């Protein structure tokens, strides 16, 4: 019997595999940007369900509010006015955790169990175990996690793991008025996306496509984009993101290598001592000095 309601695939800072014989369906959230009206219902539902209320901000000359993700805003809409060849497009993207198959945050996290990847693909933060170091931010290719100023813990979208665990869709997906956010098995979502891409191509968006970046092993939050060839148009969605090589080095190779190297030095010293013996002051020299003293 598992001790949790969702099976675990990976947990941060844990070197042994989680119980993994059960097979659960991978889930995914699909954000069809082409049918998103930027109404922020997802933001509202997210705040309501997760019992988080951000500060009342101010208008900075754009519709983006809150202006960025915070520990209390796990998802925000990003609005971009793009005018090309005289045609205006208002590209609106729901930003938030992508729930990568290969999560940079989890890779970077030093606190065991602070970040969990469930077998269904959800990457969840467990604030009880979080030590507030911010390594997850360093590891994330999408700039998602935020440290709370109140408790110095990292927060981000949980894909409503509490809802998913009991068989419900995440709050944002359920709320989305136009159905721009869909939720289901990853396979279903890919099929649905394929249909949407066909529709978009028939409407003249020849470069429409699915954003499920392979660089992070695919994601469990995917986008249908009208301009899949230029994700950066959508307020800087990274083109071909991956875990930074620096992070890969830091939390990949370097970890065992350095540990072994340090151990080797320690062991080397020990063996040196055993094999060569201590470096004592020579008896002759001591005698010589004793003699001198005796004079």
């Amino acid at each position, binding site marked *: 019997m598992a001790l949790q309601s969702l099976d675990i695939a990976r947990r941060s800072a*844990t*070197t042994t595999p989680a119980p993994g014989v059960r097979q659960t369906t991978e889930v995914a959230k699909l954000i069809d940007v082409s049918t998103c009206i930027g109404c922020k219902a997802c*933001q509202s539902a997210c705040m*309501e369900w997760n019992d988080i*209320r951000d500060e009342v901000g101010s208008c900075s000359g754009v519709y983006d509010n809150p202006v960025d993700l915070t520990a209390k805003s796990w998802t925000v809409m990003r609005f971009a006015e793009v005018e090309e060849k005289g045609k205006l497009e208002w590209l609106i993207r729901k930003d938030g955790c992508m729930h990568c198959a290969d999560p940079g945050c989890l890779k970077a996290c030093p606190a065991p169990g602070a970040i969990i990847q469930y077998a269904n693909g959800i990457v969840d933060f467990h604030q009880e175990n979080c030590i507030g170091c911010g390594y997850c931010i360093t590891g994330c290719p999408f700039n998602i996690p935020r440290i709370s100023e109140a408790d110095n813990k990292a927060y981000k979208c949980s894909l409503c793991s509490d809802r998913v*665990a009991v068989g419900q869709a995440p709050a944002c997906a359920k709320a989305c008025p136009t159905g721009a956010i869909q939720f289901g098995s990853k396979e279903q979502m890919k099929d649905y996306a394929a249909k949407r891409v066909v529709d978009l191509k028939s409407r003249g968006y020849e470069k429409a496509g699915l954003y499920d970046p392979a660089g992070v092993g695919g994601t469990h939050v995917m986008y249908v984009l009208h301009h899949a060839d230029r994700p950066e148009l959508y307020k800087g969605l990274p083109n071909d993101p991956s875990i930074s090589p620096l992070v890969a080095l830091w939390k990949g190779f370097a970890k065992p290598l350095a540990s072994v190297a340090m151990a080797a030095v320690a062991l080397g010293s020990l063996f040196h001592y055993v094999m060569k013996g201590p470096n004592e002051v020579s008896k002759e020299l001591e005698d010589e000095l004793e003699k001198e003293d005796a004079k």
Partner: protein
Amino acid sequence: MQVSRRQFFKICGAGMSGSSIALMGFSPTSALAEVRSYKLAHATETRNMCPYCSVSCGVLIYTTGDKSKNAKADIIHIEGDPDNPVNRGTLCPKGSGLLDMVKSPNRLKYPEVREPGTNEWKRINWDDALTRIAKHMKADRDANFIEKNAAGVTVNRWNTFGFLASSAANNETGYISHKVLRSLGAVAFDTQARI
């Protein structure tokens, strides 16, 4: 779980250095990873409707307690009603935030009066408030009611009193308000419909 070759080496490498420490008495504590417990598990569900726009989305209101005598029902969550054929469980940013309207710190809790020329509210009880209002209305009506117009036609009209009716109230509220208003002879009333 599928373990790739790379992962295998990683695990071995880490395991080796880890196990040497483990011998010294350290072992990573097993971190429990239970999801946040489902907050509606024992809440009471009530079917209602969003009071904002005319899509009139179905909503499910969740309250604490099971309606037993001593457990005061408190609204803790509102989400879309998936059965409603129009919204099918979806809600817009206003509907999704309904909880904060219901629980707004700006909800009125007690009858109040602002006396003429003063600069503050005074709390009064319901009976006093409604009695004072009724007295005002009766005095006004008795003074300004028009039974017949200049041509001698019975008009039974009271038009020095006006009423603006809520468009977010129930049909039944609208109906009874209309019924009461006409019985008083009131004609100066309107709704939000054309604003």
